[in-house]
């Protein structure tokens, strides 16, 4: 019934740091956020297009886009540029109501041409490969023996896990660091937190 997304705020070009304070996770609608890795120029462009399309949807239909519709829309936007791709590795996360009215959290991962899938957890970007196996182990309880404790994912544990994962990525990936932006999404909206990361 809630979703959490974490990202870092360093923008680098080669071995230089262009900015320590770039927000990579932005809101679309009330209960949905998009996090973007990859080429920063394309990220900004894509976000603007997505925001505009979301606004148009609201004017046309009188209600805001919900999470899976945003996910679908993003897929179509990315595929429309199949032969000159938008180099944006996106993650869409949010909460939506299912047919029984229960709020469910969802995460959608994408490739650059719009292929997407809803998964319990996802990580992308330069350090994505460093973070993803840890999420598999702690969120999906993969490779844990039958007697191992499967700690349920409460809010504190989820935020703590994202912090750990960002710290681990920062330690071993040179392009990750400075600050971590953690976003919590539930039915009441989106909250943001920031944690300091190593600045080297």
């Amino acid at each position, binding site marked *: 019934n809630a979703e959490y997304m974490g990202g870092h705020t360093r923008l680098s070009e080669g071995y230089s740091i262009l900015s320590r304070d770039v927000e990579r996770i932005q809101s679309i609608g009330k209960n949905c956020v998009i996090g973007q890795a990859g080429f920063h120029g394309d990220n900004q462009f894509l976000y603007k297009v997505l925001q505009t399309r979301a606004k148009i949807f609201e004017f046309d239909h009188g209600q805001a886009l919900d999470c899976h519709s945003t996910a679908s829309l993003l897929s179509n936007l990315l595929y429309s540029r199949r032969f000159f791709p938008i180099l944006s590795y996106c993650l869409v996360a949010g909460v939506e109501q299912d047919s029984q009215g229960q709020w469910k959290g969802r995460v959608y991962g994408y490739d650059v041409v719009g292929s997407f899938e809803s998964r319990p957890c996802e990580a992308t970007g330069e*350090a994505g*490969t*460093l*973070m*993803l*196996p*840890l999420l*598999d*182990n702690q969120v999906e309880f*993969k*490779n*844990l023996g039958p007697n191992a404790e499967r700690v349920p994912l409460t809010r504190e544990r989820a935020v703590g896990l994202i912090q*750990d*994962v960002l*710290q*681990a*990525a920062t*330690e*071993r990936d040179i392009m990750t660091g400075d600050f971590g932006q953690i976003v919590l999404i539930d039915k009441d909206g989106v909250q943001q937190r920031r944690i300091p990361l190593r600045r080297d």
Partner: protein
Amino acid sequence: MSIDEYNGSAIVAMTGKDCVAIATDTRFGVQRTTITTDFERVHKMGPTLYVAMSGLVTDAYTVAARLKYRLNLYELRENRPVNPKVFVSMVSNLLYERRFGPYFSTPVVAGLDPTSGKPFIAGFDCIGDPTIGTDFVTDGTSGEQLMGMCEAFWRPDLNKDELFEAISQSLLNAQDRDSYAGWGAQVYIIEKDKVTKKILKARKD
């Protein structure tokens, strides 16, 4: 397709309190095809010294054999087991001899100093640059995945059981995110007086 990704592997070594562990996957494949699923990557070089080779398997075999040859001569001359630091120099020298036509295989060394029992791990690049690790060393096509996992699970002074859990979970979850590594795992826990080899069941894909 890179030559380092022709066969595929996952190798990790970790230090603990008076112990080290070295673990590898057991897949031997040729690009997408899996040939065998019980491939031994770890080679014993001394009573408490083990080396695992990643990368191109033919070069892994050759380097391991040549290393054992040099090590045997060393032990005959010196009449004592080799010190891991010296062994690292031996590996480095062997690989650098092929500086402009390298072996496409990188070793990971794990062992205990024969006299002091201090844990020792090291990794290399394919031309012999040694990196003596203080916490863990990772290698293979799953190297990045292993880095992230080890960074989260390792902490100083793990006892042998905690070390086993840490290295096993790191390896299993990392190799599951790499299609070129997996199909089983072998973990060697090296202590001063004994070496335990454990074979783990993993996802068979």
